[in-house]
């Protein structure tokens, strides 16, 4: 099958930046990035949270408790390009970087409240699950139409430059998104403006059911950078150390005023696009097995173990704690109400115009006639 050989062989190409081998050992002759031990452990901790959360959310989705979910199992390392940023830098995620949210301090309760669109949902129940927004963390709202966030991230990056600040913007997207007009537009504006922007393309092999080979005739996605006058770097997206290394270099370049970088993080979507997807229809079930051997958590665990930074007891403790916190957050969410009916009309504009006031009054009268005890 073409897709297997293509993705399998591409991982061994010369231009792919790697630090760890598939067993988590540093490759001979490769410079290992100097990441503080505490930072490495925090990243492993956060990767564990992402995987546990994915597992729990998918289970409750299958039980019918949650309408929709999107997992990122096998791609967690690529999320942690964000770990090389400062907290003042801006991040424009797509919908498969849960790690970026947790890393910046988005809580388990925030996450679950958003899943259920309840009264404490940070976005007030305005979007379906997995469409987070957290302005207090400089994390920008997720949009479903892919690629729209790319020129927006370039705008934030250039705004920082105009204002003489050294903030960087980082924008995540999948390889399928590189087919959009917005990808071209954003990359081109960033190149021309030398905007301090880092483009992180997670090449996970599949855009729902369409393989990477059907998105792009070029040999690599990173090669697209040439046409925009910026460097393009390919990195093993399942190698946390390599992801951190190339992200750090790109961020440093951006902060120094040298302009944007495109990073292609080669990874693999081990499971379906979303809870609504069935990959058995369109791809060989053996394909994910190849990638399970390159699992980013296994590799980082092995590396940490070599360095004496991991113990089974620690991982068990993490797993138990996160599972318990998720259980508690789900229980708390169960007790929360839906947002009040009248909030449907808030935030369309800063102030309610007459037509929305009129429509709100109409809907509230309807609600009262159905439930005379409603005082909302």
């Amino acid at each position, binding site marked *: 099958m073409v897709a297997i050989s293509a993705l399998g062989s591409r991982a061994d190409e010369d231009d792919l930046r790697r630090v760890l081998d598939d067993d988590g050992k540093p490759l001979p002759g490769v410079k290992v990035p100097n990441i503080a031990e505490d930072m490495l452990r925090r990243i492993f901790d956060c990767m564990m949270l992402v995987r546990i959360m994915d597992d729990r959310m998918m289970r409750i989705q299958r039980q019918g408790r949650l309408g929709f979910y999107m997992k990122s199992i096998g791609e967690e390392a690529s999320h942690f390009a964000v770990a090389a940023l400062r907290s003042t830098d801006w991040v424009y995620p797509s919908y498969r970087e849960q790690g970026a949210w947790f890393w910046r301090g988005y809580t388990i309760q925030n996450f679950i409240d958003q899943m259920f669109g309840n009264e404490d949902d940070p976005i007030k129940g305005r979007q379906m699950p997995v469409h987070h927004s957290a302005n207090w963390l400089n994390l920008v709202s997720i949009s479903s139409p892919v690629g729209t966030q790319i020129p927006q991230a370039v705008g934030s990056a250039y*705004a920082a430059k105009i204002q003489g600040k050294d903030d960087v913007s980082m924008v995540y997207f999948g390889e399928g998104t590189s087919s959009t007009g*917005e990808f071209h537009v954003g990359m081109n504006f960033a190149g021309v403006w030398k905007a301090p922007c880092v483009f992180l393309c997670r090449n996970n092999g599949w855009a729902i059911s369409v393989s990477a080979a059907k998105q792009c005739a070029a040999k690599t996605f990173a090669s697209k950078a040439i046409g925009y006058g910026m460097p393009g770097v390919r990195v093993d997206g399942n190698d946390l150390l390599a992801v951190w290394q190339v992200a750090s270099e790109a961020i440093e370049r951006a902060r120094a005023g040298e302009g944007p970088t495109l990073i292609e993080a080669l990874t693999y979507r081990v499971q379906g696009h979303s809870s609504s997807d069935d990959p058995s229809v369109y791809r060989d079930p053996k394909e994910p097995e190849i990638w399970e051997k390159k699992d980013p958590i296994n590799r980082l665990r092995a590396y940490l173990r070599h360095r004496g930074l991991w113990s089974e007891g620690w991982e068990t403790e993490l797993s138990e704690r996160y599972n318990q916190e998720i259980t508690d957050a789900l229980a708390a969410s169960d007790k929360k109400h839906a947002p009040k009916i009248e909030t449907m009309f808030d935030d369309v504009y800063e102030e309610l115009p007459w037509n929305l006031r009129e429509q709100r009054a109409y809907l509230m009268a309807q609600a009262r006639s159905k439930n005379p005890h409603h005082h909302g």
Partner: protein
Amino acid sequence: MPTMNIIEAVRDALRTQMKADSRVVILGEDVGKFGGVFRATSGLFDEFGADRVIDTPLAEAGIIGTAIGMALYGLRPVPEIQFSDFIFPAFDQIVNELAKFRYRSGGQYPCPVVIRTPVGGGIRGGHYHSQSPEALFIHTPGLKVVAPSNPYDAKGLLLACMRQNDPVLFMEPKRIYRASKGEVPEGDYTIELGKASVVREGTQVTLLAWSGMVSIAEEAATKAEAAGISVEVIDLRTLSPFDIDTLIESVKKTGRCVVVHEAPRTCGFGAELIASIQERAMEYLEAPILRVTGFDTPFPYSLEHEYLPNADRVIGAIRQTLEW
């Protein structure tokens, strides 16, 4: 008080606000050294520099997409779309992104971007330089739509747009960019958004118009008066949210109403106005509310003056509503 045309009034508003607020930046195609194809930003590049009057690569989705990112970061971008006919590559960024940012983020991310764009026909520009696409954007929750008809309103409304926190589509009537002249105060003033202007008082028929059609409505009203018909002319100025109270008050007085717009008839903004008026003032109406509009065709080139509403058509509709 100086006399200005609409272009000069727009430029004066931009300069006034750029001086008052260092967060205001202009971006678009040819807006820099050249000063825009209609010269609206002429001189601003020299005055404020390349960081605040930004020539962009040629891509509308990029102009609006980056303007959104700038606004989220804390700037107050005022992008120019060279002709409203070119706005559609940015339609998704405007309709799905810009207009919805505040709402879909639960109020976390207001997105104060004011998009300026010339609208309307009568300049021998054909389909790609003449359209009036306001209805598409009025139908977009989260966006305000403003359409001045004269220099005084253009400056006061644009200043008001740049000082509030919602995204706005600011549509400028290009046919009368230079032909429409009037006294415009120097310095600072704003016109409240959402307020129509009664530009001519009358008792028998209410004419509703905006943008380039206000002068047509006034011409028709003058001719009608010569024939003994008293016509009230209302310039809506803000199309979203529109000033329902002023409209209803006028129609209750006159009992008759004609809506004039350049855009195609079907699902044009006139339809919404008529629906809203009849919901609130049915018992006051002496006749059906009529429309004088562009046709449901693409905007034609050679026959543009056959396409555009004119005073004679408006008078025809006034007579029809009086004789009903």
